[in-house]
């Protein structure tokens, strides 16, 4: 079984002269959660539509499940679940009827699945309430249930936490993680909510103006956005000695510019200052530094604009 669930090569979608997706080459591996990060209009939804076979590329290829084909084949698409833009719901039907309908469409005979999915997304007690009377969060949850009907191996979720209350966000996050960890499902999840994706995904794809600006793992993202305490002093040797003696076990990095970074003391500036002063080290500078998620994201997508 191929570990590559999805491979796109130079995938491009143009509308006239505007490129909604521009030469995107990505590779998604089994059982991982990929966060697709981009501002509004960056090309997230267009990319997801191309992957799901809802639209056709102007150039490039989409290979699903190591098929070797340049276009998604029907039997490969049948192994996917999608929630793109808005959930596929019939407002005049109940949640149970909606699930039943989509189960018929996907050819899933297991009638008990209706109840299991409703339980899973917390809508089992909606009874005869029609979907048109659901809150936005309830609709989103039902949309996720519909995406899970055919036991997908690749789940594509476009802004799935839109409209969810904080509890709903946590539930979706837990659900997505469980699906990846316990069932080996690969998830491609888009959002412009960076902190939310930071807590959910294992890998990140940053997209802007239809182009992939950067791909990185959670560990790489954490390293890039780590906060640290930066200390500068006149006598760098003495400063390092004091840190090693008075802050035992404290990880520290001496930078080429003569400053010292304390990655695990970003929130302890007061106690560090007190320790240093007590050891007769008077810092010229002591400040919390490092990129936040937002500033990192802006630096990635803003690079070409400047």
């Amino acid at each position: 079984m191929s570990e590559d669930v999805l491979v796109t090569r130079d995938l491009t979608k143009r509308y006239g002269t505007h490129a909604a997706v521009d030469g995107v080459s990505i590779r998604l591996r089994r059982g991982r959660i990929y966060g697709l990060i981009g501002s509004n209009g960056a090309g997230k939804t267009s990319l997801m539509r191309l992957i799901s076979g809802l639209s056709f590329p102007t150039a490039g290829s989409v290979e699903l499940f190591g098929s070797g084909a340049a276009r998604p084949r029907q039997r490969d698409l049948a192994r996917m679940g999608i929630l793109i833009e808005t959930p596929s719901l019939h407002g005049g039907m109940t949640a149970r009827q909606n699930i039943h309908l989509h189960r018929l469409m996907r050819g899933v005979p297991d009638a008990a699945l209706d109840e299991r999915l409703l339980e899973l997304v917390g809508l089992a007690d909606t009874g005869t309430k029609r979907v048109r009377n659901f809150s936005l969060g309830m609709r989103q949850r039902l949309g996720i249930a519909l995406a899970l009907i055919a036991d997908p191996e690749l789940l594509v979720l476009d802004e799935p936490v839109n409209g969810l209350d904080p509890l709903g966000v946590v539930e979706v996050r837990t659900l997505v993680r469980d699906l990846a960890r316990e069932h080996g499902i690969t998830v491609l999840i888009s959002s412009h909510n960076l902190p939310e994706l930071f807590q959910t995904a294992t890998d990140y794809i940053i997209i802007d103006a239809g182009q992939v600006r950067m791909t990185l793992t959670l560990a790489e993202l954490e390293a890039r956005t780590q906060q640290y305490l930066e200390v500068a002093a006149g006598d760098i040797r003495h400063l390092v000695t004091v840190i090693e003696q008075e802050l035992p076990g404290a990880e520290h990095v001496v930078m080429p510019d003569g400053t010292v970074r304390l990655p695990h003391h970003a929130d302890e500036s007061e106690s560090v200052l007190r320790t240093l002063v007590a050891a007769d080290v008077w810092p010229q500078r002591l400040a919390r530094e490092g990129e936040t998620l937002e500033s990192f994201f802006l630096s990635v997508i803003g690079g070409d604009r400047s």
Partner: protein
Amino acid sequence: MINQLRADLFVLGRSTTAGLCLLAVTLTAGLYTWLQHSLAVGALSANSASGVQGLSDVLLISLLGPLLYGVIVSQPFDTKSVHNALLGSGRGAFVGAKTVVASLLVATLSLPYGIGVLVGRATEAEFAPAIPTAFSLLLAEGRGLTAAEAGTVVAVTLTSAILTAAKLSVCLPLAIWLKRPLVVMAIGFVWSFVADLLAARLSDVDALQALVRLTPLAAEHLPVPGSTGADMLTAVAVSVVFIALMGLASWLIFRRSDVS
């Protein structure tokens, strides 16, 4: 395609639009039958016949048929259920199921008029045709109903139903292309009248006469009380092939079009 068909029938069973259209046709067919009796017994003046014509199958199905084609094809795009449909069955199955379900539903619109004829004839009452459609002619053809006559009514009703569905099936590719039921309804309504005129004109040209005969638009396919079984079978065959061709045209439009 079976999965998609089952799903479409599930939706159809809960469709308010389809239910209201069938209810409207049933009530109108009943009223139409009763008014033709009123015309025959003089309870309504001959001048009122033109008003009664407005309730005929020709007008009502020309209006509601395109609407149903539009709604059935467009609804999955509105609800986005087309996303799961395409993942599950693909574009060919999606169009195929829509073609079958929409055509059958539009054909169903004619049935209340046929039932009206059966009931009317069974009452042995007198009827005067407000407009010379197949149903009105059958209704006014005589009093009482033998088994053979009932069979003729059923055969003419089914033939007329399939023929009408075929004539309006040009709305299928239109609906796939436009995805706006009301626009499809407007175009389909105009088409249903223009098509007859067009077919009549084209039939006057010797070279095109044979071609028109291969479509449900040809006047010779319209079932009448005197139509033979062979005539009606030919009309049904032409209609089924025409609907299949419209389904094919719809697929050609949809197979490479983007879905939002």
